Every structure is written in structure tokens, then in C-alpha cells.
């Protein structure tokens, strides 16, 4: 297969950046998208040119490290697929593919297609965990969880934090990510005690990181490689509202008598 690639090349945050055209004639339909770029990079290195930087880690669609925009689609046009699991058999000989980094103020470009997604980590640090004493191992069924709640929680937990929702959103909002994290913890009994304060903290952090707000467009859910639904954003909103209404400072004595 022959492909024409127009790849966004940018030396760093201060560089203006531009598309550079590459003719790639060594593409096999069995390659993943990232393997196709590896071959291109090998050729660039042999020619003494700078290879294209892109994010990549597990290459099996579960780590959330990779991601860029292919012809206007975050992770490419194949639904429910990260770009590392996107195979070249979905493209045709002679296709022109334009590759751009995920664009958002909160995701500074490091180089070419590689971006800094630490803002998502800081949202997790603001409350995406349960503050529990681990103690000794518990009997597996000592806390009962309904099947529906467990399934829904797992659907939310499928989020790999790749940032495609932010990339797809016209407002560059990370609401689907934040809503997913708030839902997957809040739906389970272990996450229930901190459900409302968690929503307050994570939403606050989401805003200070410079993401936009949700206007219920639905582009995030279309782009999400793990199929998270807009309903998780509603759950975030609900928990945030409940947190606002019921918020109080910690009890003074803490039961010390």
C-alpha cells in the first residue's frame, strides 16, 4: 500500500508548527497505525532526518498513552479503537491521511504529535481514589454489590485516560473523563462515603486546569475508544450538585468527647 501522510511537525511548545508531507510506500495492511509510523521513522532516521514524535506505550489499547487525530477523528475513524489498535487494513491504497496532535490548552504539545496529558492525572489526584484503610484481605462477598451497579461501574472504569474526549470536544472539555472517574468510584459502596466531596474536588480541578465545560454535544462519546456514555457526565453533575447542597466543614470534635 502507498499512503500520503501529512503530519503535524512542531519542535516544541514555542514553535508555530506546520504540516509536512511524506510519501509512504512501505505500508502493509497488517501493520497497526503506530507500526506504520515506526517504519516511516526508520526511513527518516536512515535519511538523517528527525523522526516523528508520537505517544505510545502498551500498543494493545489499554494504557491510554497513544492518541492523535487522523483526518479529524481522534484515534482515527474506526469506532471503539485506539490508534495503536487501528490497523492499516481499514485504509486504502492512495489515501491521504492528515495527522494532528490532540489540541487543548490543558494538553501542551511536547513535540509533533506528542502531548502532555498530566492535567488528567491532576484531576485524579484531586479525588479519583477511595481513602480507605486497606487492612487485612477481606472476604470477597463481605460487601454486596448489585450486578447492574457493578456492570455500570465497570463501564465507567473502562476509561483509559487517553484524552480523546478532550480532543473531540468542541469546548475541549474533559467532562467525560472526569464523569467516568467519578461514576466508577461513586457507583460502588466503597466509593460512596466520599462520592459528593470527590465530585466537588475533581470538578474544581477540571476547571482550574483550563478545560471547557460540557454542552452535551456528544462528540466525546463518539470518539471514546472505550465507549463511555454521556450519562456519566450527568452522574458527575448530580454528585456535584448534591455535594454543593450538602457540603459542610468537618465535625469539630471528631467524636473525641
Amino acid at each position, binding site marked *: 500500500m502507498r499512503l500520503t501522510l501529512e503530519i*503535524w511537525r512542531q519542535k516544541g511548545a514555542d514553535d508555530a508548527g506546520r*504540516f509536512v508531507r511524506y510519501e509512504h510506500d512501505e505500508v502493509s495492511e497488517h501493520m497497526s497505525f503506530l507500526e506504520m509510523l515506526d517504519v516511516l521513522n526508520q526511513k527518516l532516521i536512515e535519511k538523517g532526518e528527525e523522526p516523528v514524535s508520537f505517544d505510545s506505550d502498551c500498543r494493545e489499547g489499554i494504557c491510554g498513552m497513544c492518541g492523535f*487525530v487522523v*483526518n*479529524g*477523528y481522534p484515534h482515527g*475513524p474506526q469506532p471503539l479503537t485506539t490508534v495503536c489498535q487501528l490497523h492499516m487494513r481499514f485504509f486504502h491504497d492512495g489515501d491521504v491521511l492528515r495527522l*494532528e496532535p490532540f*489540541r*487543548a*490548552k*490543558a494538553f501542551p504539545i511536547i513535540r509533533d504529535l506528542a502531548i502532555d496529558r498530566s492535567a488528567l492525572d491532576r484531576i485524579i489526584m*484531586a*479525588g479519583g*481514589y477511595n*481513602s*480507605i*484503610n486497606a487492612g487485612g484481605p477481606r472476604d470477597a462477598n463481605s460487601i454486596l454489590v448489585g450486578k447492574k451497579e457493578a456492570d455500570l461501574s465497570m463501564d465507567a472504569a473502562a476509561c483509559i485516560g487517553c484524552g480523546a474526549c478532550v480532543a*473531540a470536544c*468542541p*469546548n*475541549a*472539555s474533559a467532562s467525560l473523563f472526569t464523569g467516568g472517574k467519578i461514576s466508577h468510584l461513586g457507583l460502588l459502596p466503597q466509593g460512596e462515603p*466520599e462520592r459528593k*466531596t*470527590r465530585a*466537588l*474536588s475533581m*470538578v*474544581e480541578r*477540571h*476547571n482550574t486546569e*483550563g*478545560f*471547557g*465545560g*460540557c*454542552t*452535551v*454535544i*456528544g*462528540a466525546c462519546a*463518539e*470518539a471514546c475508544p472505550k465507549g463511555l*456514555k*454521556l*450519562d456519566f*457526565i*450527568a*452522574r*458527575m*453533575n*448530580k*454528585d*456535584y*450538585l448534591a*455535594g*454543593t447542597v450538602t*457540603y459542610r466543614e*468537618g465535625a469539630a470534635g471528631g467524636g473525641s468527647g
Partner: protein
Amino acid sequence: MSVATTSTAAPAKASRLSVFWDSQVGKKFVSAVTGILLFVFVLGHVLGNMQSFQGAEKFNAYAHFLQTTKGLLWMTRIVMLTALVLHATAGIQLYLKARAARPQPYRVPLANPATVSSKTMIWSGLLMLAFVIFHLLDLTIGAAFVHSGFVEGDAYVNLVATFRSVGKVIFYGASVIGLGLHLSHGLYSLWQSLGFRQPLWTPTITKAALLIGAFLALAYLSIPGGVVAGLIR
């Protein structure tokens, strides 16, 4: 055994209300609640004013009733003005925040499924805001530079005069089509902003919002339509 636990502490700020308003989730909530109030008003407004099809006497009696029922009049004015200010402020601030969230635009436009109505909320909203100011000057206040020959107390004559002006009909028509578009997204998305969205109701809500938006736009268009067709004269 000493065990240190860190609680997910909410940000310590004096006023939860200001934190709420500062957050985008809070602004969307305010936007949804005020949007419902404004929707109830535009629905009542068009249904009431369709009495213009029943002739001058009936319509002017209705207008007189509204003008002289001071409690209802001023309560509506205060609630609507407050709702409008909050709704517009939240909408404009959210729009600016969203713009700032992506300073570098995509060079290849995103292939996203956004509906026309969802993408144009700010523009349909600003159009309606401009129209509301004009509409009040034209038919409530009767400012001479907008409506020459305004007859105080004869709402019917004023209405007919307004809809005989081509320019005013075009502005009105564009604004109520904007209203229809605005509602077809607003009546759908507000359920999510309030936290009620769930799979069972989403398809119904999506269709209902579209139908109600289209119905209201057509209902509003029927009044200048009636003037043009000679049913209201």
C-alpha cells in the same frame, strides 16, 4: 497501629455558592433552571398572543388584563429579567471559557456529530437577546425611534403595524427560528445539566425537544403570517 488517611477534601472557600457559580457544572445548572423559566414564558407568551387571531377586542382585553394585573405583571418582569441576565451571563461566560480551552484550532476540522442547534447556541442566544431588547422597545415601551405612531393601550393596532414592516418581520422571523433551534438543543441538554439524563428517557427527550422547538417557532411565525395573510388586520 497508626493509619494516616487523607480525605478527599473539598476546596476550602468561604462561599459554596461562589464556588458553584465559578464551576462550569454550576453555571450549566443555573443555565438549565433559568432556561426552564424562560421556556415557560415563551410558551405562555405565544399562546396568549395567538388570541390576536380572535380579533382586536379579545386581544386588547387580554393585553389590558396583563397590564392591569400589577402583581402578576411585576412578578413576571422581575423573574424573567433575573432569569434572562443569569442565563445570558452563564452562556456567554461558558462560551468564552470553551474558546479559551482550545487556543490553537484544528487545521483539519473535527469530524464530530454536533447538531446545528448545539453548535449555534451562543449565536441563536445572542440573536434572541438583541431581539428581546428591540421587541420591548417596539411593542412594550413603544419608543418613537423604533415604532412611530405607537398607540398606548391598543396592542392590536401596534402588533399589526409591526408586522406590516418587512424589516421587522425578517428580524422577528430569524429570531423565532433561532428560538426553535435554541430550544431543540436546550430542552434536550438541560436534563444532563440537572443530572437526570439516563438511557431510558434520552431518545424521547431528544425527539420531544425537537418537536417543541419546531412547534414554538411555527406558533410564533403564525402571528406575522396571519397579518400577511390578512387574518389579522
